[in-house]
């Protein structure tokens, strides 16, 4: 029982950053904007949150900094792809390249003089689990409640995002912009404004996912702390077929793979660590192939029809 509870606790903790970023990316892609900058924004969210907490000793300031940084980077992507009509794939890749380089730069520059200006190896306040002591004693159930504030935020965002997307008017507007911007425009919806708004909102959630890594899951800063999680998020969006309610399954699957990997490594298996570390990446490819194949078979199209295309009223 203890074993199961601990596996489940780690799974949810590992899945938190993935889930919140996946919900964010779903909202962005629903507006027709493909943001491949997730990895870069997560890294920048992670380092800015950690640095802010290190100096201010306040988790709130750390999270707010991540929100600001994520919003700004997403704004840049929105500007390039919407106003300047740049290629969405390349713009997203640029944000990832820039975020990877800049976070590494900041990690070697933002630290205190006593640590040679580096942030690596420093400790700061962490986000602690919220549950009271007596809840932590209950097997299984405690795994869900023995979590930090970002995980609780995910619990709220999951149903909320689903409800917003499928049951509210602004949610319908958002979906129509991603499906058919021309018609949406004719209906009087401001396509550009919608795309800006949800790209920025998505960027904020992605950055919070990064902050969860550096403040809770693997506290501290290390270069490439995300280890490709940003890319797994993009796969999870496809896995959940652009429905926030399904985001949780993919994130749990990958969180679970991480947890099993941890456990196997700790138990001293004969499988070389490198092959264990390949699991999430091989898993992503398999999931992608299966999902794409299944989508084709069931003739369901999950992707917003206008995903990745820029909209210009002038040249139809």
């Amino acid at each position, binding site marked *: 029982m203890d074993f199961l509870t601990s596996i489940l606790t780690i799974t949810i903790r590992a899945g938190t950053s993935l889930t919140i970023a996946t919900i964010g990316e779903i909202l962005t892609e629903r507006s027709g904007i493909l943001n491949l900058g997730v990895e870069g924004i997560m890294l920048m969210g992670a380092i800015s949150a950690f640095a802010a907490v290190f100096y201010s000793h306040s988790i709130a300031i750390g999270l707010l900094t991540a929100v600001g940084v994520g919003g700004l980077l997403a704004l840049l992507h929105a500007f390039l792809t919407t106003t300047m009509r740049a290629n969405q794939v*390349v713009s997203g890749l640029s944000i990832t390249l820039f975020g990877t380089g800049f976070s590494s730069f900041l990690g070697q520059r933002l630290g205190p003089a006593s640590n040679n200006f580096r942030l690596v190896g420093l400790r700061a306040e962490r986000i602690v689990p919220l549950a009271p002591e007596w809840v932590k004693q209950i097997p299984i159930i405690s795994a869900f409640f023995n979590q930090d504030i970002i995980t609780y935020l995910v619990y709220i965002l999951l149903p909320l995002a689903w409800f917003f997307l499928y049951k509210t008017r602004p949610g319908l507007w958002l979906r129509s912009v991603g499906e058919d911007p021309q018609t949406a425009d004719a209906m009087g919806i401001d396509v550009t404004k919608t795309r800006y708004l949800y790209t920025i909102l998505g960027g904020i959630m992605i950055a919070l996912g990064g902050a969860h890594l550096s403040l809770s899951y693997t506290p501290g800063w290390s270069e490439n702390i995300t280890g490709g999680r940003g890319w797994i998020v993009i796969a999870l969006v496809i896995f959940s077929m652009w429905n926030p309610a399904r985001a949780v399954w993919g994130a749990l699957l990958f969180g679970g793979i991480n947890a099993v990997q941890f456990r196997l490594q700790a138990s001293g298996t004969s499988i070389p660590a*490198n092959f264990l570390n390949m699991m999430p990446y091989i898993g992503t490819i398999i999931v992608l192939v299966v999902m794409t194949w299944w989508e084709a078979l069931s003739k369901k199209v999950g992707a917003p029809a206008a995903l990745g295309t820029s909209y210009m009223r002038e040249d139809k």
Partner: protein
Amino acid sequence: MKFVFEKRKSTSVPALILVPLISFAVSLVLTALLLAVFGADPFKTYAAMAVGAFGTSHGFAETLVKAIPLMMTGLGVAIAFRLKFWNIGAEGQLTLGGVAAAGVALFMEHYFPGRSLLFAALFGGLIAGALWAGIPAILKTALKVDETLVTLMMNYIAILYSEFLYYGPWRDPKGYGFPGSRMFSANAWLPRIMGRAHVGIWVGIALAVILWLVLRRTRWGFELQIIGASQKAARYQGIAVERNIILAVMLSGALCGLAGAFEITGISHRLQQGLSIGYGYTAIIVAWMSQLNPLAVPFVAIALAGLSVGGDQVQMVMGLPAAMGVVMQGLILFPMLAGSLFTEYRLLIVKPEPRAACPEPSQE
């Protein structure tokens, strides 16, 4: 008054050349601001970077050392991107190319006597890169699986596999715990021309010219151009779209694999840590700044290699993080992306009229 973008009748050639140059300048200004924020003198830093990268024969040789893999992977990425196949797996293709070249050079000495070992190793790297790129190409054409993700995930797999080899079965028993294989026979070493820079630079430049000719002057190049513009149109013309995409992407992977084989046979002479240091990602910047034109790739590759060597110099001389160079490379892309609009569109300033003007007929 209102700003409106109007589609040009044809791609603007001056914009095609000016946009990358202006982007480079903007990146210099942005980085200068960044340097000033962190209390470093931008002019001194840039001077140190320029001298470090191009001012001494050692520096210039090191710039060429980095330019070779950037050129090869940049060419590879450009070919795939021309077909709108977003191959971001150059890093993994380079890594596996290096692994295969090292494998041939280390263990197949008996089969390939004398200098033939070098050619076998290079060929091995080329094939490994092509096959590794072939997987996402087939998944994309047969099942429509998103290639961006597959190529990226395969990078991690390839890098972990190479680590497994040089930490595990291939590790040099006499290496005092050093993570790397033993050094292989000098028969498989690529001749050097200057410092550590090797003949790969000539191969890279020659390949750039050949690829440009193939894309411009051959039937196959023409077919690829149509596929890149519109797959639908290509199908109507009876072009075998799937087969051509697979072939072109495998060519892209072969170039990246050859880049890895060059690194192994030209620089390290063994498989060791430091083979995958991000050339495959910088290749995306190289390809995009070259506007996917192979002829421009060598110049851009040397310029970006200079930034990176200059960045290392700045670390030694001024104590700034070496990641500086990477940040600058990243900063080039944003103005480049914003500016690309002007190659296809022109900016018009429209005064409001009492009646809305008739929309222009479509140019597409």
